[in-house]
């Protein structure tokens, strides 16, 4: 049995949400929603740190360990969720009735269950049969959940490629699989990347849920800090700002990658 977490009755109402909005790569003005948010968050954090080192310096020093755990869970989940999403998307457009049904059922079931319930299910409910660590169950639950959402993204991105591309490749003698991997996916990736990036950022935010299972991520570190100091306002202010800065930076990174993928538009 996993150790019950003494904190898990508090503050655990978090749902799967849409990710941060990806900045438009064509946005050239210096002052926009993204830059205001980022500058604001950094200024507030720096201001608190400078003008009120106690307790903010202590809080800021306490969190980085948790940040590593958050990143670790996010990256591991991305590594499983993206291939799972690709498989699901391919399954959803498959002509094979069986494969199609499996993929569609998976998406239907997962989308109907809150991520938090899925996390609890794998961590607590399934512990009757297998015991998995908090981190592992977090990665499994998040990957399975986001795999289903990304499946839809992949399906939509693949379907958006004109049929003529497939016909041209097939008429040259490429097989269905070769056509998918040489012609369709490389083009679909461009439409897929922003929403997949978005899902990855949403995923990072949703890793805050794992604090409930005593996984020492940012949120859990904050909660244990609060547990000894009772500095709720100060701690959660810093946590909010840290998450905000991370997601803003990541959404910019996705935006830059997106514009890099536009290389063949010409003109």
């Amino acid at each position, binding site marked *: 049995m996993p150790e019950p977490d003494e904190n898990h009755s508090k503050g655990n109402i978090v749902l799967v949400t849409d990710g941060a909005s990806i900045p438009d790569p064509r946005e050239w003005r210096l002052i926009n929603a993204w830059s205001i948010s980022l500058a604001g968050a950094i200024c507030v954090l720096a201001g608190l740190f400078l003008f009120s080192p106690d307790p903010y310096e202590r809080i800021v020093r306490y969190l980085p360990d948790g940040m590593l755990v958050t990143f670790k869970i996010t990256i591991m989940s991305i590594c499983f969720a993206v291939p799972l999403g690709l498989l699901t998307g391919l399954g959803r457009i498959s002509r094979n009735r069986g494969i199609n049904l499996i993929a569609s059922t998976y998406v239907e079931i997962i989308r109907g269950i809150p991520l938090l319930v899925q996390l609890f299910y794998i961590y607590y409910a399934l512990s009757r049969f297998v015991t998995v660590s908090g981190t592992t169950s977090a990665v499994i639950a998040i990957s399975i959940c986001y795999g289903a959402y990304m499946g839809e993204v992949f399906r939509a991105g693949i379907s958006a490629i004109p049929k003529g591309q497939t016909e041209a490749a097939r008429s040259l*003698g490429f097989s269905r699989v070769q056509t998918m991997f040489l012609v369709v996916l490389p083009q679909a990736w461009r439409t897929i990347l922003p929403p997949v990036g978005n899902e990855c950022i949403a995923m990072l935010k949703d890793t805050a849920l794992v604090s409930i299972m005593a996984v020492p991520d940012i949120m859990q570190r904050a909660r244990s800090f609060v547990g000894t100091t009772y500095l709720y306002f100060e701690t959660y202010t810093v946590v909010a700002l840290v998450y905000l800065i991370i997601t803003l930076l990541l959404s910019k990174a996705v935006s830059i990658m997106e514009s890099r993928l536009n290389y063949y538009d010409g003109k």
Partner: protein
Amino acid sequence: MTANDPPMTPGAGVPNDAPIISVRNIWKFFGNLPALQDVSLDVRAGERLVLIGPSGSGKSTFLRAINRLEEVDRGQILVKGQNIMSRENNINLIRRDLGMVFQQFNLFPHKTVLQNVSMAPLKLLKLSRDEAEDRALALLKKVGISDKANVYPAMLSGGQQQRVAIARALAMQPSIMLFDEPTSALDPEMVGEVLDVMVNLAEEGMTMLCVTHEMGFARTVADRLIFMADGQIVESGQPEALFTAPRHPRLKQFLNQIL
């Protein structure tokens, strides 16, 4: 199919008497609408066929049925004696021998012009990169566009894109070329450059099936003109004969409308 059939090799010749393409009584339905009704046609190697007809007459469907981009519901299509519907024959190998050019060009936008043309020989025929690129460059030269080898298709005009598409189809060294309204999406001033390439190809003896509205091209290039209406071949024969002395009222009506 019997075991005695020769294996399909691109560019392999067939006996002169045997048709290179043999279409027998094919039917194709879109829902309840018959797009092709009991169409039969034999094409000999080196023959240049032009298919004309009003829109919705089934001529594009017919052309696309020959390389199985459209699956026919009834009937049989033999390409070099191989039934293209049969599970025993690998359609991907048969398609290598059937180059196709589309109305909308359908170049791969994420590949350069050179990559578009060299991709199939590189990946399917397993040529080395040098060999594939040499072949591609030679073809690009042939269609008069070798100076654009390293740009992306979006940088090209419609006429240039279509010439690249022809080069891409030729890169597999097919023995038959299918053209599906290759000039219909082009601005008028670009039609000529594409037709020139096609005329050259015809002069080299390529077996060609071409759906087009270019009557001048049909008249000068076609060995045989096929007029389709309502999913059927209504009249066929020497282009000169069809243009000057059409017999079927549908063809008369069609020629009156376009000439």
